[in-house]
């Protein structure tokens, strides 16, 4: 999956973002809300991986996100972990109405550590925030946890759309920062990266290095 190297030309960026988390926390709904601004209650479980793209502008920079929505089933983890490669951003999702989906977050983080993706930007989504009467994960607990793990937490609702865009925009801004940090600490000029490692559309034909600042 070499096309997923960090790529940019004329301030156009292409980022690969992965959505992971337990079964039925709303990963596909978050992706659909963000990419198409719709909520579909009738959404079947994801087997393997689904994809969407989304273009946005942030601080004058055009960004194209390639979103990989993975299956949440633990048994699939060995399959889905192969998709982590080359990800620039990871969205970790839990369901605020089911405590176990939150207590499993460290397991997901561990999975990322195993894959050596420490340098990817990670963000935490507490989804289904609209179901306030069924809340099981206290806000304070979640925010404290996110803070101590150096992650930003957004309580989102794919159903109402609440905070979904804001959360993704925050993720994008942090990926841009990470990209520039990598660029400035890279030992060789960034645009001399291995051209063959990136396959892109016509507009995105130049690759930047894939260095990591951490």
């Amino acid at each position: 999956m070499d096309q997923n190297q960090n790529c940019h030309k004329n301030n156009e960026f292409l980022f690969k973002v992965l959505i992971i988390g337990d079964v039925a926390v709303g990963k596909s709904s978050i992706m659909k809300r963000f990419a198409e601004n719709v909520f579909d209650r009738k959404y079947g479980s994801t087997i393997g991986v689904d994809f969407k793209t989304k273009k946005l502008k942030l601080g004058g920079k055009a960004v194209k996100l390639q979103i990989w929505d993975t299956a949440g089933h633990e048994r699939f983890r060995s399959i889905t972990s192969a998709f982590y490669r080359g990800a620039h951003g990871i969205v970790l999702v839990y369901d605020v109405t089911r405590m176990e989906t939150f207590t499993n977050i460290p397991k997901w983080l561990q999975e990322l550590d195993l894959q050596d993706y420490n340098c990817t930007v990670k963000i935490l989504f507490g989804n289904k925030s609209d179901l306030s009467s069924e809340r099981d994960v206290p806000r304070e607990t979640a925010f404290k946890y996110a803070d101590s793990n150096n992650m930003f937490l957004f309580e989102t609702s794919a159903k109402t759309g609440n905070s979904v865009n804001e959360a993704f925009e925050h993720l994008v801004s942090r990926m841009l920062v990470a990209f520039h940090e990598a660029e400035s600490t890279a030992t060789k000029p960034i645009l001399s990266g291995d051209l063959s490692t990136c396959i892109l559309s016509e507009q995105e034909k130049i690759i930047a290095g894939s260095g990591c600042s951490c």
Partner: protein
Amino acid sequence: MIEVAKKKELRDLQEQQKKQEDQSHHENFVVNALATWNKEILPNWDNMRNAKKVLELWWLGLPPSVRGRVWKLAFGNDLHITQELFEIFRCHAEQKLLNNENSKSRLRSEDLAAKSQNFVTDSVVDLITMDVSRTFPSLGIFQKGGPFHNVLYKVLGAYSCYRPDIGYVQGMAFLAAVLLLNMEEIDAFICFANLINRPMQMAFFSVDQPMMRAYFLAFEVHLQDHLPKLQSHFTEQGLTPDLYLTDWIFTLYSKSLPLDVASRVWDLFCRDGDEFLFRTALGILQMFSSELMKMEFITLAQFLTKLPENISEENLFQSIANITITREKFNQVLTEQTQKVLQLYPADKLKQHPTLRK
């Protein structure tokens, strides 16, 4: 103006007549086929199963009213599952569901005694319950309160008790649901267990990575044989078969193709075996090859993980008919690729491997 309007009217009328003719032609065909299946084939199953005439009729798809019976005969029951055995596991599954609900309500009620006794909910039961509601959501019959909700839970729950080593794996709900749409609960369970027990399904549902890899590699060999240009385009774009084949194989196309088209794929999968799953995949790729050739990685991935909803059954089967993979070829390629995988995986890992060790 009037002339033009008249011409259009005439054209519309002709089109309508043509449609009606096609419709009645199709109805006639179904009535005749049904009679043949009921009167000639099913009573003489063992003798007629492989007759040329039967195989040809089978290719056209099974009439829905005999579908369940034919599938049951074709899947067989090598596992010798009986009604009694099913009842035992069904009872276990129902009990587990009950226990789970009790634990949950006690945990919800802030019952300190319950919490201190460490009441835990059964994650498999939770997973099945959640997934059952997310199975064919547009049909609205498997969702909570729908007529097939409980029965789908029972089949999947019973299976996870019957084979705790495999348990429940996502994708299973779709398979059991397709079976339940065509047969009774007990038959659906028997077919389901025997279906999962087939080599390819067992490799995927036990998430046997070396074997899955061998299947993906084997698929690429067939892709290279039949659609070499597309294969090199996919390679250039970095699109590997695991990205789209995973869903197709786990759900036997029931999630990705319209249900009536998927049912016909199942008909032929019953007739021919695993090679038909590969032929279907290649048929899909061939049907859309000119579009696919123009797409870049992400568009390809999006397209193949969400196929157009109005896929034409006729065109797809026309396309599948152009793809030939014999049983011998399928097995030969799979064996070769399995050998390759053997060399790729560390020896100590393979020592514990149930299939590859041989």
